[in-house]
């Protein structure tokens, strides 16, 4: 693997994408506040932003398999839980009741 290539443009594009996704997410939250599918969009944006940071800032695609899987797993957990809570909240609450 060659780590000595200038990645400035790629890093800048990633940063701009993260800023844009943050603002888009805010806009969606405002415009579709009562939309039943809003959690789906928010979950997708969370996953996408996490994946961008992992791949382009941490370089998970060339990292040790444990690190790559750790990042993939962590980034997927919250979006999956958000979708479960949004669409199966009552069931989750029942399961999580002592």
């Amino acid at each position, binding site marked *: *693997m060659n780590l000595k290539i200038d990645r400035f443009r790629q*890093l800048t594009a990633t*940063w701009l994408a993260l800023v844009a996704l943050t603002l888009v997410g805010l806009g969606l*939250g405002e415009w579709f506040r009562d939309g039943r599918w809003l959690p789906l969009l928010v979950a997708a944006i969370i996953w996408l932003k996490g994946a961008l*940071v992992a791949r382009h800032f941490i370089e998970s695609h060339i990292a*040790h398999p444990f690190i790559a899987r750790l990042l993939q797993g*962590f980034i997927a957990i919250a979006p999956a839980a958000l979708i479960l*809570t949004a669409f199966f909240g009552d069931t989750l609450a029942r399961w999580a009741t002592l």
Partner: protein
Amino acid sequence: MVAAILHSPPEIPVENGRHIPGNKGIWVGITCEFVEFVVLFAVYFIARAHFPDAFHEGAQRLSVVAGTVITLLMVTSSFFIACSVNAIRLGRHRAAVAWLVAGLVVALGYPLAKFLEISWNLAHGIDGSSGIFFTVYYYLTFNHLVHATWGILGILWVLARLLFHGYTAEDHSGLEALASYWHATDIIWLIIFPLFYVLA
């Protein structure tokens, strides 16, 4: 985390032909950090499932501006620190220092923004006893602030070493370890932000 940066090996560690960003020690720390936040996220989602109305109404009372500013500070400082790693790999020492200083300055905006946010919250009657949503909000966001503070201390240490040419194009695993920790802390905030400020 500081120990992992202090005891960084002299060369970029590679195992099974794959790159280890920073060193093994920092990834033990990051794994522990992820486990801690998975537990905290579990608390968030279980509380949200039990009290959906409290979470719907609570998010509308928070300052979206504060949450957005912190998000932009986190992604921007992450970008600057990634640029510092990029510069040192290319042997551009002065550029690496400049990017890391920029990353530090922007990162310092986070505790400042959080202080202003908490002041705003208290002025609007929002404290830890304002309901389940705010209890979870304070617990999760304060925890994140603690982790970010460790990161800022790490930036200071790495910057001191960088200023004295402690890192070179061939040996910069300490800087990479710091960058990995900061990016991981950034990922955690990118999850926290929509859960509390966007899903109103």
